[in-house]
């Protein structure tokens, strides 16, 4: 039973990773670049929500609605100032530039906020503590369900966006032709996803950005680079691997995720491609 519970908790955790990873997956699918500052931008979004909650006493959900446009704007600015320029300069430049950016964001946050772990738990009320038990040993937390629901919504919206809307078509068209990719400012929906994920997950500290990036990237790779639904599966697989590892020994949580990632890379480079951003969504 404890294994079943671990798998369930892993799915909740994995849904969070998948939401975090879908922005990364989208950017890679369309622009063929990895934003090494992805995790740090996500943490930045979470802090924005925290500041709004503490400043105004609003509920985290409302604060999130306010923070969202700001993060989307930031995504556009980043795209126009850093990524667009970096894309033209070769393969290494986007990595180098975003790595520099990652260090800057991380340490600015460290300056503004103490290195302590912050939590939105208190202001989110019952959401973080509520849980139900099934058969005595399987626990379903309200927060886990919310994250799962958010993941379902985010992925469905992204899928509909890519397959049904004009900007979505345009984005897929540019994914087909990398030279044309720089012509579009990538839609900042990925920022949407990031901020949601972290704000709801509700525990974070300034230096957690790199860890977030590693987990998000692992989810993308496990599911197959550039595949949207693959990323969802990859996130879930990563989450389950981590909770099953933690079942053996809490120290093994991150390790078993890493090992799954390396195993996937070794066994099948490229992973399962369920949906490409390119040919068909």
């Amino acid at each position, binding site marked *: 039973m404890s294994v079943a519970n671990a798998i369930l908790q892993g799915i909740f955790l994995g849904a969070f990773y998948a939401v975090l990873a879908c922005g990364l997956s989208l950017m890679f699918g369309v622009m063929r670049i*990895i934003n090494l500052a992805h995790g740090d931008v996500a943490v930045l979004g979470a802090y924005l929500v925290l500041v709004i909650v503490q400043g105004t006493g609003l509920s985290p959900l409302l604060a999130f609605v306010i923070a969202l446009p700001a993060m989307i704007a930031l995504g556009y600015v980043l795209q126009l100032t850093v990524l667009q320029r970096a894309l033209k300069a070769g393969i290494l*430049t986007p990595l*180098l530039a975003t*790595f520099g950016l990652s260090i800057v964001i991380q*340490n600015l946050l460290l300056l503004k906020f103490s290195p302590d772990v912050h939590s939105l738990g208190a202001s989110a009320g019952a959401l973080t503590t509520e849980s139900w038990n099934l058969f005595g040993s399987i626990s379903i937390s309200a927060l886990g369900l919310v994250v799962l629901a958010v993941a379902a919504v985010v992925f469905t919206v992204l899928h509909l966006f890519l397959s049904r809307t004009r900007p979505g078509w345009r984005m897929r068209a540019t994914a087909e032709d990398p030279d044309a990719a720089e012509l579009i400012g990538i839609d900042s929906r990925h920022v949407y996803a990031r901020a949601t994920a972290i704000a709801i997950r509700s525990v974070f500290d300034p230096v957690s950005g790199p860890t977030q990036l590693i987990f998000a990237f692992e989810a993308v790779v496990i599911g197959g680079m550039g595949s949207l639904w693959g990323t969802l599966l990859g996130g879930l697989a990563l989450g389950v691997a981590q909770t099953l590892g933690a079942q053996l020994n809490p120290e093994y949580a991150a390790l078993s995720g890493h090992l799954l990632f390396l195993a996937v890379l070794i066994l099948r480079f490229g992973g399962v491609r369920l949906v490409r951003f390119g040919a068909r969504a």
Partner: protein
Amino acid sequence: MMVRRWTRTSKLFTGGTGVVALLLASVPLVFSPDIVQKTTTLLILVLLAAMWNALAGYGGLLSVGQQAFIGLGAYGTVFFAGFGMPPYIAMVVALVVAGSLSIPISLFALRLRAAQFAIGMWVIAEVASIGVRLDQDLGAGTGISLSQLYQYDPNYRQAYTFWLALAFTAVFLAALFFLLRSPLGASLQAIRDDEDAARSLGVRVTARKRLLFVLAGFGCAAAGVLIVANTLFIEPSSVFSVQWSAYMIFMVLVGGLGTFEGPILGAILLFAIQTTFTQGGPWYLVGLGATAALFALLLPRGLWGTIEERLGLRLLPVGYQVVEKK
């Protein structure tokens, strides 16, 4: 038209480098242990910058996980010294063992491209770090000191470590220098300039990259060995920290990616910044990150690359120049 490699300046400078190395060797005889320790740190930075540049500048391999080898070299030293090996012997053994690990890792890592490689290496470093954390005998997460070095008088110990650092740095830089000047080096520089073009001309790109990867693996392991010898205490969170990658990227980008002299210049600059802002702290890292990003975007050839371009200056020549015949 004629092709030349040496100029009078570069002959003088390369000869001068030998003299500088000899002068450096006398540092422990003249200066206080404090200065000796700082100079050791500078040598470690030079070594790290040169090795990262070998990977990224010539192989096009951007790794954010070279701290894997730094950490393995450092912990390897503690591990072998724990078996009763004389500490300085343990350092050499740790260097060889940790460096050799780059060969099996390369079989896997070199199949990854660009970002996959960068983060794949990072994950490998994380796995190594977790491995150390799980080992109680290596102090787990709290760190461990190389207590076997305490048997030496501090002044002698600092001097030995310094000479070891000088020897490692000189050997690895010389290895890179002669590698780049050899016929093999021509193919490496061809890969740097255009990988696809090099491949189409028959350069065995993967084999060449493996050579650089292994060299950098050994070089970073050597740096790790020196770090534990210089600071006597290591912990997984610092020695396996991704901050090392941040330092390496800063030094190489500011100095000049894909030039031989640039990373050395970058290392001296970083060292100067570190000694000026001794407190370190977030602002200092914000500055480093911003500078690296700006250099990547605005001055991709770095300080030395730009100087070289403008003045046609070559101090440690690894390539050839075409000049008008007099």
